[in-house]
């Protein structure tokens, strides 16, 4: 097992726990891609796995694996940062470890049930034991309760550790955000026959998780990474975290309105949703200006090039995925046509990857550097082509899928929605249209590129920094000692 010879024993409890979460996140990321490829193939070969592993099951695993791996990544990232931030050891390692195994076991059981039982009769038992059939939060009710319990244990661990150690601005934002994260999930845990009420609360979970609490979680992780990787002073980082929270919640909470155009909710949501959608790019404008300011005032000299590259990919991915792709079809006059078409898939792929996948990958590189004994991951790193190729393939792959889905989405909204008036016949007419199918083929091709990038990424994470020559490690140590002296 020389491949995996990591410096695991020297880790603090929080970081040990973090590594476990990261490993499961990486595995589930792979599952997401695998099932994505199958789902994509089912558009091209409709009979594939018919009545054995149908599209609804495949697609459910595809999106659930994504939600769960990102959650694992975030939880891992917080465990990774908390001890440095609180300046004390994690208070409940054993409890956290127990929660990790319960959570992971629950995920495994849920996946097995998804794959082998799949569906049930139309009664409460199915919703409690098999799946709830509500996109993104399909997990059966027993698992919902498990998720809330695990998030609460996580919350306790975070809050108690900060209370025992040092309470900082980032700690305050993080703890409040976790309360919201757990609390919002409850909004998705009930049954009603009324589909409008159902979707009203369903969006609370989906939108307010993804466009509010997750964003702030990423803001906290980003703030911490900036201090670690670039040495930005805490006071500045925290002030900007507050600015970001103000801008993000200021535009994002009522941005919820852009999901309330067509689900039976009153007409005033058209105005609210449209207005706040126009505000949502403001945090991105702030980010652009601030990034330029920082770039001018600092040299981005750092010892972890892969992490830095993924942070930059995060900034661009977030801007294009959430900003450009989001605003493109968010206004009601346009959304009337694009709602419920491959447009949403196009936006979803780039936004989730740009905003959340990339920052998680950056965290993995930060962690793996530590696991390799803090060797420099800079221009002296051997086999650097691996991380560079993984970065290129993953980004080109996702961007390619996004463009391909955009073409299909345009074709679909034009033929099915605008011309045919959304009848079933119109739907199928669009699905067989030449450009729609072209888009689907290209999506699949870029899907393979993405998957290849993932394989390279995993290989790189397992091997990066292993062969750094002793001379480089010595030189790096001297540089850092020297750096500290001149700075101090």
């Amino acid at each position: 097992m020389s491949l995996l010879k990591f410096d695991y024993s020297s880790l603090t409890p929080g970081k040990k726990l973090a590594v476990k979460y990261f490993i499961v996140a990486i595995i589930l990321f792979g599952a997401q891609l695998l099932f994505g490829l199958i789902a994509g193939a089912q558009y091209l070969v409709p009979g594939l796995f018919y009545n054995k592993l149908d599209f609804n099951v495949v697609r459910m695993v595809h999106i659930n694996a994504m939600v769960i791996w990102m959650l694992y990544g975030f939880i891992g990232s917080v465990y990774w940062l908390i001890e440095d931030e609180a300046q004390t050891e994690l208070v409940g390692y054993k409890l956290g470890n127990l929660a990790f195994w319960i959570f992971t076991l629950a995920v495994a059981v849920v996946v097995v049930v998804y794959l082998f039982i799949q569906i049930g009769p139309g009664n409460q038992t199915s919703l409690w034991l098999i799946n709830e059939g509500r996109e993104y939060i399909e997990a059966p009710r027993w698992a919902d309760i498990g998720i809330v319990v695990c998030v609460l244990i996580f919350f306790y661990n975070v809050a108690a550790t900060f209370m025992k150690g040092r309470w900082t601005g980032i700690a305050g934002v993080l703890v409040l955000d976790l309360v919201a994260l757990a609390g919002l999930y409850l909004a998705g845990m009930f049954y009603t026959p009324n589909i409008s009420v159902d979707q009203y609360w369903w969006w609370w979970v989906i939108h307010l998780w993804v466009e509010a609490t997750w964003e702030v979680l990423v803001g906290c992780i980003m703030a911490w990474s900036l201090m670690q990787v670039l040495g930005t002073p805490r006071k500045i980082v925290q002030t900007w975290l507050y600015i970001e929270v103000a801008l993000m919640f200021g535009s994002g909470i009522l941005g919820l309105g852009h999901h309330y155009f067509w689900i039976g909710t009153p007409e005033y949501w058209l105005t609210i949703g449209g207005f706040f959608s126009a505000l949502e790019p403001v945090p991105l404008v702030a980010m652009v200006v601030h990034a330029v300011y920082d770039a001018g005032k600092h040299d981005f000299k750092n010892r972890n090039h892969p992490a830095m590259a993924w942070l930059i990919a995060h900034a661009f991915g977030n801007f294009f995925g959430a900003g450009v792709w989001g605003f493109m079809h968010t206004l009601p006059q346009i959304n009337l046509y694009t709602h419920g078409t491959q447009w949403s898939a196009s936006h979803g792929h780039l936004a989730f990857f740009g905003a959340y996948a990339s920052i998680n990958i950056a965290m993995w590189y930060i962690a793996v550097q530590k696991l390799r004994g803090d060797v420099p991951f800079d221009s002296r790193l051997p086999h650097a082509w691996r991380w560079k190729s993984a970065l290129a393939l993953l980004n080109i792959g996702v961007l390619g899928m996004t463009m391909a889905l955009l073409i299909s989405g345009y074709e679909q909204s034009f033929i099915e929605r605008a011309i045919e008036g959304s009848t079933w016949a119109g739907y199928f007419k669009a699905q067989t249209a030449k450009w729609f199918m072209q888009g689907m083929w290209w999506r699949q091709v870029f899907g393979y590129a993405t998957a290849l990038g993932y394989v390279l990424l995993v290989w790189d994470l397992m091997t990066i920094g292993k062969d750094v020559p002793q001379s480089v490690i010595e030189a790096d140590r001297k540089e850092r000692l020297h750096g500290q002296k001149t700075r101090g």
Partner: protein
Amino acid sequence: MNKTPWWASESFWRKVAVWITGGMLVILIFLTFDTVKKITAGSSRVPAYSVINKRIYYRFNPERGFMEPVIGDDAPLFGKMLSEEEAEKLVSLGKMTIQAKNCMNCHTLLGNGAYYAPDLTKAWLDQGWGAESVRENMMVSFLMDPKTNGRGYGTMRRMPNLGITEEEAHGIVAFLKWMSSIDTNGFPNNFKTIPQEGDQ
């Protein structure tokens, strides 16, 4: 350190963040109370479940500038008038079946879900069922045996056999009929409906 102007200080922005977040939440909660009231079954936007006893039209309203459901005269589902309670029970069975069979990961409902199969928002009113007189039974037989009664419109895409019972199929049809009566602000736009009795 104390040279930072007040408008750029950490404590100022902490307060701003807290007030903005709190303020937005209060507005959202206020709007939620209003909205939930307006989308409770039995309101003008979301009709009572017993609407399945009636004929449902989807017509252009020039005043609002888009199409809206119009509730017509009696047209009992499966030939049986239901009480409000019975109707809710049937629609609920349909909704629960739709969840248990994971329909939303192929279809969209009110435009939300997956894009592998047609939107179900106005499926009850779709022209594909041919005529009003045969619609209900066609829907039931399709749901119970989609393999034989495929509706892929010449594509190879077929709905899998989901083991839907007759009772569940009736529930699903009731749910779809009820859902088609929801006022969705004109979504989907320009929908072409099945000819219904009294339609002009």
